[in-house]
């Protein structure tokens, strides 16, 4: 039995709108994420996937229920977390290397060690030759790679990803997914991903969690159990992938319809 990394128990969240309206976003959510597990949250747009992710990352607080990370509640003794979103937060005045090293720099790691860690990671995602480039000189995909290894560099226990590859072209996404598969294989991090893209969800995860329309509860979970190490291309045409894709897609579309009806009222 693997250790639990994140446990979400009975968590609810209500958001106050500017119009003084309150909307219930999350409704008694229960979720356990195991150590080194790759879990993906999917659900209709605006269902609260990102809200749940930010609660787990400690970026906001739940209205009720509790979230424990490695058995600890709140911020005390919290392990180091990584967070990658669709927003580009590379520091534009730092080179690729400077950006990758920032997490280590904040920890006061020696120059030598910083250099060896950043060099290794830059190599691993094929950014060699761009160590001294500034973010504005990179393509969208390269920036994203730099952001991913910036997070890996300071070796967080858990990495949260909030639709990290939105806005990139399909080919670049495939490449980045390949990178993520390799990274998970090499580093074995606990990863929680939020995405709209079922293909991405199935390709990368050990488990996909489907949330209902707002207020979100967990509708169903899917054990992916595709063999690892995986490759994007091979995985995508396997029987199991196609079967899972159809099943999740059907379950999701009933929720999407429900969400649409809710919005009409």
């Amino acid at each position, binding site marked *: 039995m693997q250790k639990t990394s994140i446990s979400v128990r009975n968590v609810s969240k209500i958001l106050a709108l500017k119009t003084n309206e309150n909307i219930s976003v999350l409704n008694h959510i229960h979720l356990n994420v195991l150590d080194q597990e790759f879990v993906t949250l999917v659900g209709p747009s605006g269902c609260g996937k990102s809200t749940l992710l930010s609660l787990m*990352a400690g970026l906001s607080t739940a209205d009720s229920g509790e979230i424990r990370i490695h058995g600890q509640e709140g911020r005390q003794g919290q392990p180091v*977390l990584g*967070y990658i979103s669709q927003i580009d937060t590379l*520091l534009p005045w*730092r080179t690729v290397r400077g950006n990758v090293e920032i*997490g280590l720099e*904040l920890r006061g790691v020696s120059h030598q060690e910083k250099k060896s860690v950043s060099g290794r990671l830059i190599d691993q995602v094929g950014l060699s030759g761009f160590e001294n480039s*500034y973010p504005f000189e990179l393509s969208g995909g390269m920036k994203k790679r730099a952001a991913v290894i910036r997070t890996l560099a300071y070796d967080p226990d858990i990495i949260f990803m909030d639709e990290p590859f939105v806005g990139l072209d399909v080919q670049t996404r495939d490449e980045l997914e390949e990178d993520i598969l390799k990274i998970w294989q090499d580093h074995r991090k606990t990863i929680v991903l939020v995405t709209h893209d079922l293909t991405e969800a199935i390709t990368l995860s050990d488990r996909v969690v489907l949330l209902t329309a707002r207020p979100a509860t967990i509708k169903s979970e899917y054990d992916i159990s595709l063999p690892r190490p995986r490759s994007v291309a091979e995985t995508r045409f396997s029987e199991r992938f196609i079967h899972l894709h159809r099943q999740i897609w059907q379950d999701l579309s009933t929720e999407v319809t429900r969400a649409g009806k809710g919005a009409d009222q």
Partner: protein
Amino acid sequence: MKTDDQGIRAHNKTLMVIMIVFALILWEVLAGLKIINPFYSSRPSVIFLDFYQFLISGDLSKHLMITLKEALAGLFLGTAAGIIVGAVLGRIRWVADIFGPIITALYGIPKLALAPIFILWFGLGAESKIFISGLLVFYLVFFSTFEGIRSVNSDMVSAIKLMGATRFQIYRSVILPSCVPWILTGIRGGIGASLLGAIVGEYMGASAGLGWMVQYATTTYQVERVMSCLLVLLFMGLVFNKGLSFCEGRLLKWRPDNR
């Protein structure tokens, strides 16, 4: 493409020089023909001669050094104060709420109107000029630093915070670097302001300096000397700006428009 572009720019530079030379010749000829009165506007040949004498007599460097010292001291102190006050007000809400309106209200006073009172307070020496020039620079740098701090990308701040950065580390690694372009813009304006402050201060009351020289030469109808002083001021402004451009080039390598 690149070489073409450079070719066009070199060509334009040549045109500019030709235009300036032409304007000077026109001035010389018109003044020689008394179409424009050289008593009021002098003429290039006389000005260059006066400039030469001004230079070899040692007067130029004497007055230049005085004004330069005042302007540089004003620029330095005004910039330092502007950055510090801007950074504090930009980050600490209650300080901004209390002091922001006061600083903005005082900004409404035309600062050069304060020059005579500063001379009364700080005397005829360099201090009063440094103060005027520093005050002018302060406002420019303060406002741009404040704006810069206010417009820091909050996503970058939270990304660094998530990595476990302390408040001080966030300040050093995100907030200050992202303000550098803003601060440099403030200093760019501050260069002109620092010279203006020093010169106007000297008009109001001084016994040396380029401003004093301009004032003195005007009252004694030595227009060529006034023009010589303006020439020196022109070069001073150019050198200051070139120096700043050099700093910008080094500090803002990371900006796409800086290549």
